[in-house]
């Protein structure tokens, strides 16, 4: 009667037991979280624990599982940014840095090509006019020789530069495969630098991931606001040390060729004319720390690597008495006069910093400059109070939902309703167990998904029970009716759930953020509910049936 092999029963029981144990930590969320934080803190500190950490560690026994469901930003509160990296900036930088090479290459064949001049053009495109039209072919060949093979899997055998001619002008730009390769590099660098910057601020489990071709999604739970996050990651932090050509108060002053007019960051209406070619740049920094200058004002001390230190030393010894500019993101932070040669490669940047600014600047300099600027397409800040309110409301709704559905099932199917309710509770445990162990994120729509699952989970049981009722009406023996009930209801249950699973899959692949969280809980809920409603209730019924051996049943 209703026989199923022992291994199958044991497997079902083991899964249920795992579900209950693995979902348990979520009931004691704050304790387990404190325990987990203490564990990581102690591990990071080479096993040495403070008394508070030991106390936190004792809040949850370590033999029990401690994986928790991650709470989404809408529940925990925090900042969310969607940034678009201006990948084309990098093309422009590459092409600009190409000009000196092109000039030098053409200088070698000056007698054939005549005078060369850089013509104005859109960013990312270099236009060079050639004085002698007959020498065009020679000039193009010379420029083409500057190209090198593309370093990427798809661009094998192709050159990184595309050289064409337009009348008297040679047009140089990056080739298509090189652009793709450059984009990939830019995105990887940006991700890495953002990660370093966010980690330096030290918050819990930030999400930093690439979205599509040129976007980065950054979610930092527990951070006050998106504006704060933007201040950390939105600055390019491109630091250079440049020669000062002049100082002016005229914002429209002509800086002259290969110089730029840059505003001072703290003096109003003061502009510096600085050389475009930097003496040393921030890439050659090995360290930056917040510190104080002789007058105890906040400053940032820095250290160069060997080549940076040499260049800086040579420059300062050759230019004693001259000012030089410290430029950050196209603004002159300060322009001190070189008092003496600075050997050894360390120095200090002073400006009108607050303590917070100097600390931030040090973080930014240590993490390195972003390869390109970013635009922010989406900014969201969710306060922790709102998140907590949502959790509370969600919990309340879920509990009321479970109780109402359970009572309803009990009233409709009596003992069999009770069996379905046991399966429902196990189903809830399994959803949380799976979510915790795959490191899933619970969002507010995700909670709604679970509540919806409560309603739909009993559907499989309703289908089976209704079928058993029908079979009982046509005078089948009780055990046979139960068996046939399960069998015949099967196809409807499978079809119905697979169609819902299709929906969950589409939501997962096309949805973003909280919607994706909903898709995950809905999908998990469908799978676990089929398991509990079919296998678990069947096991309970067969145990009950073999124990009581009822001659007739009422469903």
């Amino acid at each position, binding site marked *: 009667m209703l026989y199923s092999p022992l291994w199958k029963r044991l497997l079902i029981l083991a899964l249920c037991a795992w579900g209950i144990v693995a979902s348990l930590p979520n009931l004691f969320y704050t304790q387990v979280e404190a325990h987990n934080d203490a564990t990581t803190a102690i591990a990071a500190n080479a096993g040495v624990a403070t008394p508070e950490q030991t106390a936190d560690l004792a809040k949850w026994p370590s033999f029990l599982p401690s994986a928790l469901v991650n709470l989404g930003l809408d529940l925990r509160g925090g900042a969310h940014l969607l940034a678009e990296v201006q990948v084309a900036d990098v093309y422009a930088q590459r092409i600009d840095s190409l000009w000196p090479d092109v000039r030098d290459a053409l200088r070698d064949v000056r007698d054939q090509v005549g005078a060369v001049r850089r013509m104005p053009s859109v960013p990312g495109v270099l236009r060079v006019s050639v004085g002698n039209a007959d020498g065009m072919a020679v000039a193009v060949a010379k420029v083409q020789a500057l190209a090198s093979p593309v370093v990427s899997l798809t661009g094998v055998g192709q050159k990184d530069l595309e050289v064409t001619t337009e009348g008297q002008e040679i047009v140089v730009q990056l080739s298509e495969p090189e652009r793709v390769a450059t984009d990939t590099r830019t995105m990887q660098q940006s991700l890495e630098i953002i990660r370093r910057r966010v980690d330096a601020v030290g918050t819990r489990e930030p999400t930093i991931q690439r979205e599509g071709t040129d976007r980065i999604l950054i979610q930092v739970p527990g951070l006050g606001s998106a504006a704060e996050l933007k201040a950390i990651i939105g600055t390019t932090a491109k630091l250079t040390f440049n020669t000062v050509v002049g100082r002016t108060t005229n914002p429209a002053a002509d800086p002259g060729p290969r110089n730029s007019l840059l505003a001072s960051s703290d003096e109003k209406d003061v502009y510096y004319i600085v050389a475009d070619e930097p003496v040393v740049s921030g890439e050659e920094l090995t360290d930056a720390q917040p510190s104080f200058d002789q007058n105890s004002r906040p400053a940032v001390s820095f250290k160069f690597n060997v080549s940076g230190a040499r260049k800086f030393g040579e420059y300062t010894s050759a230019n004693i008495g001259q000012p030089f500019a410290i430029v950050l993101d196209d603004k002159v932070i300060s322009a001190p006069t070189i008092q003496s040669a600075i050997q050894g490669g360390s120095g200090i940047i002073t400006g009108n910093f607050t303590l917070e600014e100097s600390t931030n600047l040090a973080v930014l300099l240590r993490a390195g400059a972003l390869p390109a600027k970013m635009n922010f397409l989406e900014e969201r800040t969710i306060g922790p109070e709102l998140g907590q309110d949502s959790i509370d409301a969600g919990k*309340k709704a*879920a509990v009321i939902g479970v109780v109402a559905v359970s009572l309803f099932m009990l009233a409709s199917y009596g003992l069999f309703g009770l069996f379905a309710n046991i399966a429902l509770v196990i189903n809830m445990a399994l959803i949380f167990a799976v979510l915790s162990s795959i490191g899933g994120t619970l969002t507010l729509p995700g909670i709604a998904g679970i509540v919806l699952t409560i309603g739909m989970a009993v559907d499989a049981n309703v289908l089976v029970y209704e079928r058993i009722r029908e079979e009982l009406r046509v005078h089948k023996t009780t055990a046979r009716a139960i068996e046939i009930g399960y069998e015949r209801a099967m196809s409807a249950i499978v079809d119905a759930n697979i169609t819902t699973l299709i929906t969950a899959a589409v939501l997962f692949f096309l949805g973003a953020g909280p919607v994706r969280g909903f898709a995950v809980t809905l999908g998990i809920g469908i799978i676990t509910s089929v398991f509990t409603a079919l296998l678990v209730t069947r096991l309970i019924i067969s145990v009950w049936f073999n124990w009581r051996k009822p001659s007739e049943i009422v469903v």
Partner: protein
Amino acid sequence: MAWRLRLAPEKTNFDFFRHQWLTFGGSVLLMLAAFLFWGTEGLNYGIDFKGGTTLRTDSSQPIDVGAYRQAMNGLPVGDVVITEVFDPSFRADQHVAMIRLSSVEADQAVSETDLAAVKAALTNLDPAIKFVSEETVGPKVSGELVYTSILAMVVTSVGIMLYIWMRFEWQFALGGVLALLHDVFITVGIFAFFQIKFDLTIVAALLTILGYSINDTVVVFDRLRENLVKYKTMPLRDVMNLSVNETLSRTIMTSLTTLLAVGSMMVFGGDVIRGFSFAIFMGVLLGTYSSVYVAKNIVLMIGLDRSEKPKNGKPSDHEFANIDA
């Protein structure tokens, strides 16, 4: 016999086609009305789809929408929409408002400095005010979200249609998916009629409706398939009535348990998720209705090939031939 709550009599024998011009025709009319509201009133798009900024404020002081508006007068912001939010879960002294801002230039998000000015003006008006959430979506993203949402709808419908075609017959697939669209469009129509905020989570809700509603329809179809094999000579219309009657008790039970759960989410789940819960609630109601009154009517209109004669010498390949049941 132990007492049981019975929502439907043990054996029913309703003719679900008797008033089909009323029920089916009503559905068609409702769909037309939904399109009409959608077209004329339009949907009250949230910033996910329109771009812009929303602020959620929370204060212990009562909210005076007029004063809020006054405070923002003269600030460099475009359209301002202020809605006070009420929810049974709020504390007695908790007053919440949602403020939607768009910049002076259309379709631009409010700049950070302008937003700071707005916040300062409101704090000046009510020192107890707190800004519990702030969201800004740029026009570029919002355009893409519209596209992705429509794509998601289409992909889901096609996926479901293919699956049902595979498991049943193409007539069922068509009937099922048309019934789904009926549920979704009427729900959208309700959102247009009441001007409820339509954002990304509502799209998720509509997709969930697709999943739920087809679930209901499939159960009826499954029984229909079984009965078509069992009663080979009974007219299609009668087999359909029989199938719906046989599954009626289950249909009502499941709808009620789902409505209980979703209803509890709608009442107690907080205002942030209310639109979402409401959409699913309406969808479940409509889905139940459409699986009884819409889906199979379409199958009946198209008609089914129930012949067992081999066509053109080839053995019949439809689902109801050659089944040994």
